[in-house]
């Protein structure tokens, strides 16, 4: 038995023993997701237990080094862990922007002291982070951002406004792009970290077309940030931001490909009914579902290949842009089909039978997929220039 086979057997046994049965049920919605943080209320004892057990094992961040709360697993071992979790339908023990975004940035740019200080609470689900990037006047043209940190010697005084800050009203800390040099566009931004309870920080949820409010406006009014709380170099935060956007795009692209292949057509056939031959009885819709399934199954293979290559440094550094573009456009197409199959029932906005309009709200939510974290158009620009090396500004 190879080392990896032995590892698989060990992981399988550990999961069998430690993953509570309730945590093997499919996630029904955001209410089943564990985000952690100071104010987190566990939705069940099983959720708490599952997090604690994974934390003890380093499995909330399996590929991070052990001193930072991880399990120190290799790319191959991490893939096996994910496959084995998917095999039993185990839920993710902890979702977190700290894990997906800040963590990778700190691992790349942080000092040893920062890594130990910030990464462990992320791994344990104790501090919930949010991301302060976009501003009302700086969306796709992010580098034009205006939130300003005035240098006061041992600290900055930050003033300005962020927008589309995911879960800012629930987060404990923020990683935030702040202009610290008004004369230098690209090399005049610092990547700051500060506590959301700092005086002068306020948040206001934004109601979206889905009726839900996962995003906030975040206001900074004379917020004092000690000059120790930044990542990388002062005025070189854009380098960190760009690196991190790669990870954000990796995350949004849904590069997780360990679970069972699920056919959308297969899942929806029951809703639509079948003809005498057992085929979904709307032939045009059936054809569209089948074409979608081809794309989705193919993209799953792409997700597996992308992660295998990304984790071992084989991927083109800009390839996460392509992944995010393809993945989010696919997800929007999926939800268009879900709505088409759902018919008038999928129009119901708040009935208990439809779980409070889960389908229309979910469908509308996906429209943001190709906007947040870089619009599809920006991603195509990046692919054209950085991967295909096409000319022009």
């Amino acid at each position, binding site marked *: 038995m190879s080392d990896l086979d032995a590892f698989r057997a060990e992981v399988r046994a550990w999961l069998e023993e430690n993953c509570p049965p309730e945590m093997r049920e499919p996630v029904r919605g955001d209410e089943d997701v564990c985000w952690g943080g100071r104010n987190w209320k566990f939705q069940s004892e099983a959720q708490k237990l599952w997090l604690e057990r994974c934390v003890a094992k380093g499995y909330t961040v399996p590929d991070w080094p052990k001193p930072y709360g991880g399990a120190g697993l290799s790319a191959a071992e991490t893939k096996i862990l994910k496959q084995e979790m998917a095999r039993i339908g185990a839920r993710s023990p902890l979702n977190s922007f700290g894990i997906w975004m800040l963590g990778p940035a700190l691992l790349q740019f942080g000092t040893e002291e920062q890594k130990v200080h910030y990464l462990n609470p992320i791994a344990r689900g104790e501090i919930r982070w949010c991301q302060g990037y976009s501003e009302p006047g700086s969306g796709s043209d992010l580098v034009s951002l205006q939130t300003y940190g005035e240098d006061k010697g041992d600290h900055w005084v930050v003033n300005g406004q962020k927008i589309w800050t995911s879960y800012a009203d629930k987060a404990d800390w923020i990683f935030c792009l702040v202009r610290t040099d008004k004369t230098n566009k690209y090399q005049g931004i610092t990547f700051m970290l500060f506590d959301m309870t700092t005086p002068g920080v306020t948040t206001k949820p934004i109601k979206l077309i889905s009726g839900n409010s996962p995003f906030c406006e975040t206001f900074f009014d004379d917020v004092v940030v000690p000059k120790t709380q930044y990542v990388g170099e002062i005025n070189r935060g854009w380098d960190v931001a760009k690196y991190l956007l790669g990870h954000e795009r990796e995350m949004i692209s849904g590069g997780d490909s360990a679970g069972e292949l699920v056919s959308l057509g297969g899942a929806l056939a029951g809703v639509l009914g079948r003809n005498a031959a057992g085929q979904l009885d709307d032939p045009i819709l059936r054809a569209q*579902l089948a074409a979608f399934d081809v794309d989705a199954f*193919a993209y799953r293979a792409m997700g597996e290949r992308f992660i295998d290559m990304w984790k071992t440094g084989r991927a083109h550094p800009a390839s996460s842009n392509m992944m995010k573009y393809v993945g989010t456009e696919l997800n929007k197409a999926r939800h268009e089909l879900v709505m088409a199959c759902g018919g008038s029932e999928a129009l119901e906005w708040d009935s208990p039978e439809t779980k409070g309009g889960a389908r229309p709200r979910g469908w509308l939510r996906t429209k943001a997929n190709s906007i947040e974290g870089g619009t599809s158009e920006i991603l195509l620009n990046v692919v054209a220039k950085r991967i295909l090396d096409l000319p022009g500004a």
Partner: protein
Amino acid sequence: MPLYHNEDQLMLKDSVGPFIAEQAPVAHLRQLRDSDDATGFSRDLWAQFVEMGLPGMLVPEAHGGLGMGHIEAGIVLEEIGRNLTPSPFLSTSVGAVAALAKAGGTQAVRWLPAIAAGEAIVALAIDEGSKHRPERIATTATRAGNGFRLDGKKSFVLHGHVADMSIVAAKTDGGITLFAVPRQAKGVTADPRRLVDSSLASHVTLDGVEVDADAVIGEVDAGEEVLNALLAAARTGAAAEMVGVGQGAMDMTVGYLKERKQFGRLIGEFQALQHRAAHLYGEMEVARAAVMKAQELLDQGNDGAKLMVSVAKAKAGRAANLAVREGVQMHGGIGMTDEYDIGLYMKRDRALAEFMGDVHYHTEQVARMSGY
């Protein structure tokens, strides 16, 4: 196994890629076409393939081959696709070998070493109408004397007029049976037709063709499993070749965007073209991954291979088709000329699209296999 090529596979790519690019670039296809070549491929080039051990890549070592897998065969096919190389590799060394290796027995012993040694070209006589419908085979094999008597018509038999043997799928009393039919067999006529991509595919007529009982590949009535192995290998191989065709067309087109000037600017500066090129890149990468996954599952003998093979053929079909259509359009007027190569990519893509089931056929299979 990670879904990227390992060191050995990269070495294979590094040797096969330059070899095919030097010995059989698109100019090689033109030369065969313009000389109205009657064989459909270059036997000299095939001899060079033999020197490199390529025809027997998938042949088990016990039968004189290299015992490699579909991932390795796919590397060769991608280069064949990228260079539009006319070659019997896909039919003989991938489709036929998969069937013979699956079946074992007399015919495997007879043909596998010959294929590996480059001494035999084998054609696949599966299709009967103008569309690929292997579940509706009408050619019959009836017991006669010591063996069988074959009657029927086959179409789209690539290399059928020069193949030393054709694998013929026929209906027997209790199912499907595959037969090894030598070219000299009495009652076989192959009528080669020049196709849009300059390849030669035959209409084959089987008129009371008598074969011995040991001409059966595998077992009588139990040919479906062998046929499925043949189809899976040939479909995955065709998908890999299409990735090569699409990649070749895309590379040529992106190159053109960087050199063609209009309005005093390189046309690659125009965002309208940049976005289309970037979209195409994404589709090609996804197709490549799907094909690799199908190859991996086939090599593992995984039950999920059949679904992924259809996904790969459908996805590669769509991506390569996008690549050649965008290729001709973005080249503008020059893309419509015979002198320029991009049109040849469009033609090869069209032929490969039909080979062993088109996008629609395989999309339908995905729906069926997914239970709707």
